[in-house]
């Protein structure tokens, strides 16, 4: 699975994102994190192998999430589905 790390100055939260490479909402979410200098990692699910996609499905559903992208996992506990700046602000402190 190709995990991309985006370097940022804000590292007080562990931010991981499942995204679709063609998705405009995902792109907007990545940009918001970058604009706020947040360090994060992401995976473009559509570019993963079948096996990795299945693992991702299990990972998201195990956490009670819906299979919708972008999906953010903050500090391994808070799940945010969709582009929601206010929820991101609350969880990450943008």
């Amino acid at each position, binding site marked *: 699975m190709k995990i991309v790390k985006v370097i940022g100055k804000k590292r007080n939260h562990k931010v991981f994102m499942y995204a*679709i*490479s*063609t*998705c*405009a*909402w*995902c*792109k*907007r979410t990545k940009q918001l994190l970058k604009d706020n200098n947040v360090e994060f990692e992401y995976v473009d*699910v*559509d570019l993963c192998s*079948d*096996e990795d*996609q*299945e693992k*991702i*499905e299990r990972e998201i*559903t195990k956490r009670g999430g*819906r*299979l*919708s*992208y972008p999906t953010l996992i903050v500090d391994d506990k808070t799940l945010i589905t*969709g*582009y*929601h700046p206010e929820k991101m602000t609350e969880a990450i402190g943008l």
Partner: protein
Amino acid sequence: MTTLEAVRRRAESNAKDRGYILNPDPEFLADLIEGLKTNEDRYGYPSCPCRLASGIFDLDRDIICPCDYRDPDVEEYGCCYCALFIRKDVVEEKKPIEPIPERRPQEKIALAHTPASQRVEKPVEIVPALTAIPLKTKLKMWYCRQCGYVCFREEPPYICPICKAKREMFEEIRATIYLGA
């Protein structure tokens, strides 16, 4: 390979058909058009840029743009899932365009995440040939893989009269109809 201009024109035509407006944010719209083009080049059909496609036409049929969920979503939320199509009043009154909940059933989405080897394929239905009619002209039956339009012709149409899909989107249904004089 299709072009961004062709994808944009088709989206404009699809919006016009239902009285919708394309996303008024030029940058966001450009991203969506590019995503649709990427998917069309990748899968052979323009599946929703914001959803995971399986690459199997029959599994992705409901998320080919304009997707099956567009109209109920636009009606209820003012925009479709990826926010390509926007209800007129939302644009005119400058209401915020925000992400909406996924209407596609989770089981269908889960299937797109399932490796091909583990998917249960549905048996292909074969349409019986109508051999009782006297033989004279041999025609083939074609269906548009994008919208389901069916026609009887020797060759598929150059463009689907319903959804404007290209000739490549037509597939032959393996049944031969014989028409009498």
